[in-house]
């Protein structure tokens, strides 16, 4: 039976695979960072689709809160990774 949480859960697995493929096969740091972000989005999607079906009408708020912090941590990690990449490039040029 195809239900909403199964559709989005499997999409999350697919996104994780696409991101992983990009993260290990690209040579450019920026492309890798982008791919890891896609990977992270897939993990979040898997987690939240598991929260979709609960007893009542409302979804489970605990995974939502964890993914919310996850999104913010992901963007800070991205910022740090981009700054590291820029510093490395500066070291290459010098």
């Amino acid at each position, binding site marked *: 039976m*195809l*239900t*909403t*949480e199964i*559709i*989005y*859960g*499997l*999409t*999350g*697995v*697919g996104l*994780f695979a*696409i*991101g*992983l*493929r990009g993260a*290990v*096969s*690209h*040579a*450019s740091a*920026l*492309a890798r*960072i*982008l791919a890891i972000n*896609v990977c992270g*989005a897939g993990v979040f*999607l*898997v987690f*939240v*689709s*598991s*929260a*979709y*079906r*609960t*007893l*009542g009408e*409302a979804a*489970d*708020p*605990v995974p*939502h809160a964890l993914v*919310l*912090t996850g*999104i913010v941590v*992901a*963007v*800070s990690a*991205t*910022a*740090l990774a*981009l*700054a*590291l*990449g*820029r510093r490395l*490039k*500066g070291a290459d040029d010098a």
Partner: protein
Amino acid sequence: MNALLWIVLDLLLAGLLLGLAWAAVMTRDLKRGVVLFIAFGLLLAVAWARLRAPDLALAEAAIGAGIAGALLLAALRDEPPIEERALGSHAIRDRRLLDIGIVALAGVVGWALLDALTYGEGGQLAAAVREQLALSGVSHPVTAVLLNFRAYDTLLELAVILTAVLGVLALGPARASYRHAGSVLRSLIRGLVPVLMVTAGYLLWVGAHAPGGAFQAGATLAAVGVLLRLGGDDRAGLPATRALRWLLVAGVGVFVLVGLLVTVAGLAVLQYPKDWAGALILLIETAATLSIAAALALAYLGGRPVGWDPSPAAHASLKQKVSDRC
């Protein structure tokens, strides 16, 4: 609406997400990849809304698509033009083996997920949150989990943001500034900045009883910084260095302070007294909003803003003072 139509819509959205992600990751043109990634983030926000997670939809639109997209676009400036990039963009030689491995991994994970999703009732945690919600000081369950039931997680997460921004600050000066905005962008900025600031305040306040809260508000406020930076402001609207340092640590600082102060009243660390819970949560969230906004705006600058490092003269006098003392 009937169930079949929803399934068709879900499948359409899922297909678009996968297609955009594939195109964004596999393209050799980085600029194209970043723009596709931003579009992907916006569609993901729709998927969150569909999964009954409006908090995540707001956060994804503001942070995942907005701020992360702005960070990646800014980083594109450091990349060489396409024709100068090494042509063999693949670092791994045997790609077929890699593809088989990844497909196998996805198959196993997908199978485990299907098994997990169809197993049992689940939702015990959701029921526990619903039972205790009245004690939390707020009426929105996600905010109750973030700032009360699992406050430790959120405190540590603010510490992660602070650590990341310290790393960015340590790695070098900010990128060169943009040229000053033309009149069209300038009037757009003039109109948007107040609207964004009011929206951030609203999101912060409304988090107590509806989707919203410190993260969405902080990201919206950081968007003000991004706009100002695009308009030619070197410091992205951030305050002077001393005030900026306080802003960056305010989130973690106020959180820890509140968490420890309640122990004076004989409660556990981060266990708020029931009558004060709502006010304390708002206090912590306000500090967190300011810290997150400052951290994300600094991240967009990409390093130490102008005026962060002491001027050569001040640096020399500081050195003199230290050597006098030794």
